[in-house]
């Protein structure tokens, strides 16, 4: 498992050396807006949704231009090709349930250029059980409970996971963090992943979601997460996340399975 928490290290060093953080003005170059393709095939959502947008300069407000009028098609290796409809500006969708083991190819035609990507739907791993434990002392917060997710990693297969845990009331809120894992050192073992990003209080209903990711989807998220590490362990050579899209497009075309479980925190 190769995910390392840098926040505690940073907190320790910063606190120790009377250091200081402040916001400063930096001049950055402008760039031509680039196309962003964002979407993934899943096994639980029957509709595939692809969003197209464009990038803006870094200090501009976060209002991203929508891209309409693109022709998007997806084909399955064991099925046919479907074209997606632009259901709302910049959002293209079509009925396309994800099937384990199938390969999907995306083609986007826009303004005379073509962007493609291929992805293979990974095999599903189910959550075995979910448990809770009181928040340990070393974390920033206390008095609540942390949620643990237990599952069995299939041995002999390269598995890539993503864990998402949230209060049912905050399910639709965008995430703050990406936690992705590969089974490199734990192949075939019973695995417990602890969500120590936030704690939950008694009577909270918590949704735990375990995703298994296609390799290129894992690579995308892993390199995306590197960009969110700051401070001391900040990546010396940040670069655009490794995408499976061709022709210089930003974003990714992913595939993942979802296994969900719910737990209500008891005292």
């Amino acid at each position, binding site marked *: 498992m190769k995910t390392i928490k840098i926040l505690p290290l940073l907190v320790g060093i910063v606190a120790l050396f009377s250091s200081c953080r402040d916001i400063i003005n930096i001049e950055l170059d402008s760039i031509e807006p680039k196309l962003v393709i964002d979407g993934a095939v899943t096994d639980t959502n029957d509709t595939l949704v692809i969003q197209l947008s464009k990038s803006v300069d870094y200090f501009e407000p976060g209002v991203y231009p929508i891209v309409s009028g693109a022709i998007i098609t997806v084909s399955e290796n064991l099925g046919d090709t479907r074209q997606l409809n632009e259901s709302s500006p910049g959002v293209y969708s079509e009925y396309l349930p994800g099937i384990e083991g199938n390969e999907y190819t995306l083609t986007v035609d826009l303004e005379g250029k073509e962007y493609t990507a291929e992805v293979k739907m990974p095999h599903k791993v189910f959550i075995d059980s979910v448990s809770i434990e009181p928040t340990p*002392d070393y974390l920033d917060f206390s008095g609540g409970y942390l949620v643990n997710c237990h599952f069995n990693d299939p041995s002999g297969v390269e598995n890539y996971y993503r864990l998402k845990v949230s209060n049912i009331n905050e399910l639709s809120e965008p995430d703050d963090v990406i936690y992705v894992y590969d089974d490199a050192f734990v192949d075939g073992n019973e695995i417990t992943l602890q969500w120590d990003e936030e704690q939950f209080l008694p009577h909270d209903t918590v949704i735990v979601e375990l995703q298994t990711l296609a390799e290129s989807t894992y690579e995308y998220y892993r390199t995306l997460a590197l960009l969110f590490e700051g401070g001391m362990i900040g990546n010396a050579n940040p670069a655009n996340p490794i995408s499976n899209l061709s022709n210089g497009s930003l974003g990714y075309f992913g595939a993942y399975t979802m296994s969900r479980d719910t737990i209500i925190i008891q005292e």
Partner: protein
Amino acid sequence: MKKISKTRNRLLLTLMLLTTSIASVLADENVTINGYVRSADTGEGLIGSTIYVEELKTGTATNAYGFYSLTLPKGNYTLRFSFIGYEIFSEFIGLKNDVTKDIELQPSSTEMEEIVVRSEAEDKNIRKAEMGVTKLSPKETKMIPVILGEQDILKTIQLLPGVSSGTEGTTGFYVRGGGIDQNLIILDEAPVYSASHLMGFFSVFNSDAIKDMKLYKGNAPSVYGGRLSSILDIQMNEGNSKRFSASGGLGLLASRLTLESPIVKDKGSFIISGRRSYADMFLIFSKDQAQKKTDLYFYDLNAKANYKINDNNRVFLSGYMGRDVFNIDELFALKWGNKTGTFRWNHVFSNKLFLNSSFIYSNYDYGFGYNFSDNMIYIKSGIRDLNWKEDLQYYINANNALKFGFNAIYHTYNPGEIEAADSDVFNSVFMNKKQAYEGALYISHEWNISDHLNVDYGLRYSGFMAVGPDTVYTYNEQDERINSESFADGEIVQKYKEIEPRITFNVILNRNSSLKFSYARNAQYVHLLSNSSASLPTDVWIPSSKNVKPQVADQIAAGYFRNFKNNMFETSAEVYYKDLYNQIDYQNGAEILLNQDVESQLVFGKGRAYGLELYIKKRTGKLTGWVGYTLSKTEKSMDEIDNGAWYPAKQDRTHDISIVGMYQLNEKWNLSANWVFNTGNAVTFPSGKYSVDGFTVPVYTSRNAYRMPDYHRLDLGATYTPKKKKRFESSWSFSVYNAYGRRNAFSITFQENESNPTQTEAERLSLFQMIPSVTYNFKF
């Protein structure tokens, strides 16, 4: 074909030069005077002390053990023995036969002696034609305010042109644009892989234990090798062989103590020096839970003993051990340290031939642990070196000295192993240990051709052999393994060799000025991979292998040196140019930590660095100090990064200025100040942003196209030295680091504004503003 004949030609040329110079010497009636030059108060051998023959306007200097040998025609001469900080000793001597003369020099009685960086003295024409060498005496470091009042050799050399500091709070330094791993730091000949404590605040060298320090900026003579950019050769004190002495200091963050004593008066002595910091002691008063349970400390210990068996044999045993610990409760643990041990035997074969044999052990290890889902996982790595060296110095006559020998090292690398407290969750993993032999043969000739020209030239033939047991993979463009080869114990995995010629010319124009030219080729067989913006001890050292070739550099340099006003002012202007081959960098999105296939994450290419170094120094008077300015550029080019375009190396610092001043206010007070300025590191910042899966993601264009904000700071210091009582000396040092509290950026993080997520901002983290310190020093 071409390569072989080039090699042969180089060897032939060297041999030819040697035979012609030796031939000119074998004639006539010469006598040899040899011996040791020592300090009269401690018995320490004086390194680089000059012995000048007035009548012949020639002479020599002592070697690293204080040994000298001078072969002259029979006759009467006035010999002058001198060394900075000591009274000159002159003697008129009639040389009819070979004679051994050991000299003891008296320390200079004036307290207001020149605090100097030894370079060109009046005896320019007998000084070796060393170029780009800086020698620092620890006396000098005591007058410069460095962070938290600690005297620090490494911080002092970073105040000289051509040498820049790593990012504040990190270990490592850059010499002439080279990377952090391109500096070889040796303590009594043992390599020290991580030369700093506490995130770069303190170096691992306790200056109470250090006698001499020499820094070569890329053109070291052939006796040295193994790194491209610099050699920092540090010699420990031998220990007072005349009487017991103790010295030390008590400071806000760390304290130190040194004890030295003779074992047998004038025959043997020992020295033990220790330091311990206690930054974490103040944390128990913290209200923060995590801070309360934080351990943050370092300690180091230097020890050395020596014994003179007889006039021709002397043995030394020295060792160093240091450790840094940083634990945050049960959340995170970081520790690293060096351990070295050196056994040396000096043997004087004849009055002209000196031999030193060394057996060296060096171990560097680091471990870091973190809490993963309530399990402590430890990741450990390290390097262990066993080294055997034989160095011979043959002092043919006053104008010719020959040095030759060999060096053989056995390296063992542990690139990483995981240990998990709970092995149900984690499979304990071992990354294959790697073994390699690194060796070199060298020869060099120091030749005083005439009053106006001397040259130091030589050849180093170095090689590297990675051996099994090991399994080696080669990779395709998708970083997948495409081939694997297994090697048995001792089987050769990969061999490399390199011929490294070195030459430095010194043209003495007149009493006050000289010109120097040098060329050197260096090979480096070990590499440091670092992908964090700080240089943490978790950076990985890897040896050369099938996939990773040795780094090689060619450097040429030229300089003009001039003294003014009877050596009160020293000035110099040097230019250099370096071509670097087989440089390593990371591909985009590289995974380094615990990656068995880390070699697949690397890209290879070339580099180049060039610059101008200007230096002016005032050596004498109430006010002394120096100003150094470096203008430079360092770039790399890799096919896989920006299509091979030249991009700035991280450590490319266009401007680097150091102004250092020391003022002896009166008998008791000495004030000092230093101001440093440098252009920020080259960094990769975003130019745009977009949204994916609810995240705001930055867009990057070229690598290292931006700069961190400029760095500058002022340090002030004052030392109060009350009158010396009999044998007891003491002083108080006060200092302020970053006196005007400039917020120098340690890192800049681009992130969403907390209250308004559609707005992005740049957050600067700066580490140290205005840190005061007080230290009480004593010596008796």
